């Protein structure tokens, strides 16, 4: 066989390996119930429950932040994050957690939150009205 043909096969093999491993390493978005059933790390999408307490007291422990989140199925769970409270967390619209369930608490190693954009209309409205009151 020609050398280039062998090399071509090697390249194709590696390409397939890369693609398969990409998808085997990719994760799935789950719910708290899924997380409870499988002990492995997964990503949960949901909303912060703004009515319940967000606990962070740097003077007690700078690396402990807890809050309650509702996943997309509506199940609620206490979440603990080892780290400082992300700024403006209260204003988040959507939260993506990476972590796993320990007992009845979800221990998150990563929080990704979506805030209302700086420039979207509803946010604009709020700031504009402030300006208006101030000038009257």
């Amino acid at each position, binding site marked *: 066989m020609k050398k280039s043909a062998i090399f071509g096969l090697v390249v194709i093999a590696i390409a397939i390996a890369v693609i398969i491993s990409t998808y085997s390493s990719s994760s799935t978005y789950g719910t708290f119930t899924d997380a409870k059933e499988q002990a492995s790390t997964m990503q949960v999408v949901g909303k912060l429950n703004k009515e319940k307490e967000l606990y962070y007291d740097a*003077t007690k422990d700078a690396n402990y932040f807890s809050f309650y989140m509702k996943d997309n199925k509506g199940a609620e769970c206490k979440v603990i994050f080892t780290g400082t409270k992300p700024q403006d967390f209260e204003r988040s619209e959507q939260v993506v957690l990476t972590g796993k369930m320990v007992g009845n608490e979800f221990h998150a190693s990563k929080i990704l939150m979506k805030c209302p954009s700086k420039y979207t209309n509803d946010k604009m409205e709020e700031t504009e009205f402030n300006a208006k009151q101030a000038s009257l």
Partner: protein
Amino acid sequence: MDTVFKGEHLLPGQLGQFFVVLAFGAALLSTIAYFFAANDINKLDKSWQRIGRIGFWLNTTSVIGIGVCLFYIIYNHFFEYHYAYAHSSRSLPVYYIISSFWEGQEGSFWLWTFWQAVLGNLLIWRAKSWESPVLAVISVAQVLLSSFLLGVEIFGARIGSSPFILLRDALELPFLKRPDYLAFVRDGNGLSPLLQNYWMVIHPPTLFLGFASMIIPFAYGIAGLWQKRYKEWVGPAISYSLFAVMVLGTGIIMGSFWAYESLNFGGFWAWDPVENASVIPWLTLIGAVHVLIVFKNSGHAYFTALFLTLISFVLVLYASYLTRSGVLGETSVHAFTDLGMNAHLIIDVLVFLVIAVVAIVARWKELPFSQKEEETYSREFWLFVGSVFLALSCLQLVAVTSIPVFNAVFGTKVAPPNEPVTLYNIFQGAFAVVVALFMGFTQFLKYKKTEPARFLINAGAYLLSAILIGGVVVWLTGVYKLHTVYSLLTITAIYAVLSNGKVLADALKGKLKLAGSAVAHIGFGLLLIGAMISAGTSKVVSENATGEMYSEEFAKANNPRENIMLYKNQPVQMGEYEVTYTGDSIALPNHYFKVDYKKKDAQGKVTEQFTLTPNSQANRKMGLVSSPDTKHYLFHDLYTHVSMAPIKYEDELRQQAGGGDDGHDAEQNDDSNYDAPVPHQVAIGDTIRYREGFMILKALARQTTLQSIKLKADDVAVGAELEITTHGKVYKALPVYLIRGNNGFDFAKKVEDAGLKLRLTKIIPKDNKVEITVYQQPESKKQYIVMRAIMFPYINFFWSGTIIMVIGFLMSIFRRNKELKTV
């Protein structure tokens, strides 16, 4: 309804919009004219070419016109324009007005089309016989880029987004309908604090010059196929590819340096989709450069060279689709928001993909494929293999980064990997091992044929020394504790540096033209070593073992805790340093924290001392935005950033700076910030102890002046000179007692740094004593910061490797340009 709006400046916007449309039209004209010029059989007839040039120059002028109008609007704070409102504010200094210029999508499209126009003019001047076909391709790109700025509605669909849209048109708000609405729009939204950094002034222009120059090799590739000059295009394509790779590489590393210096994710590379999107075309074009050289020297690998050259530019467009369409959504922290241009961006990618595919398919039968087989012991074969590996590494980057795209296309819900950074590090590391190995031994191969025995001895000897040196490095830096890939990569990168060092040494003895590639390879090798060691062995210094434990299980699963808390003026031991948060200084809008670092030897003598000032900005819209401060040593960096601090919002600080009033109510409120007061009766020389130190009453002295009150002739004012010692620091305070007529008043003195308020509350003449009332702040009211510190070893290899690599690229460009005789 025609409302006359007060105070608007409509002329610059109308002029700007005129230029936008003109730029689009002129680019279209230029495309058509150059197309006919390139297809013209009579090469002496220059009339189409002349029209093409006029079109392109008109396009360039309009693009500059757009820039001038937009800058004028932002510079003069015309907030009736949405772009100025959204991206700037009155308080921005001029150099940040420049960065606000390209904060938005429209501005960055402008930057891109501007560079492309500049490069187009360069080619009109230099490309000679290539001008018509090459500029035809570039003009197509100009048409598409300027269409992104149009903001015109055609058949009910809005095409592009104009930077000159008015605020009242952009937003549907009732008060914007009022004729005097501008009176309420006093200030703009401002520039994101993260971008208020000098790197943000120069990083985007460099990056976009890199993106813009990627089109030149693409255009030459297409032109070569189109004009059936199948081999000639390779020469100029090599030079311009080297230029593109150099500039884009510089731009990417500038971004990485900005992230390292001013963002707080704690590192210089995070494999964020936005970063990946810019590094993918860079890698493929580097692959392309190598294969182009292979073809030039040996006639092999024509298709791979062509393919990589063309795909690189298509990937640039794909990258802009990824970052600008909002498709990345929840996977990326810093992609642009969606401007509803999804379809438009996809069309942009498809247009160039189709051009490339059609050109290749149409000419397939005539392409100069080599029939011979490469020799195994030849440079061309292994250069080719190495480049293919480089391109393969991109496949993984593309696949993982595109997960959201696949989700959007197929409606699946696949989440990106849980630990993307580790995944990328190991995957890309593995590819880098192979590439670095090739970078090493290919240097011992010659084109056509090399004598195997000689090659094996040379390459083997260097590999052996690399293993020895690398082994020591891996051992000393502790890389061996990590995944094996890290150790392998360190060794192979050292191999690449060594063997290219040999080439460089030879080059200095005579074969000077080979120096460029050797220098670039050495730079890349050093960059890999630096990245590997510093990312792999970076260590959080601010580990916190204290802190209340919530549950044992929790503590077990979550160590180490990476933030420590520092109360003001209370030293904390952190690793080998004693750190103290000693004070603040405010330079609006930033709040700087002084953090004092001390290193002591066994006897407790201070051997090293320095102060870092990380800063934060409490922004109403974005929350606390922190920038780190870094102590640079030759062989490592100590990086410190504040992750949490109870500081006031920017606007509160501004108000405070405007003048505070301390009414009686304020005084009452103030007391609630302290623990219950404790009175002490003391004589001169007595000591008062309190929780965090002690104070001595040094003297009582009659005061002739008081800060806030004018003294009358019969007033008696007595001051108590107190010397306070706390946490190794000494402060002085002078509370005053004033007797006016039959009334006594006392004036408290605050020692903010010590968290104390002191009052001279009573004078007791018969005992020769006074009463000092001590207020001290409870722990929770005391000022504190929560801080994270990371040690990055050998990071300077990374930066210096980058600089060396860029120098190498520059040398190669000069060499290739000398070889080039453009007709």
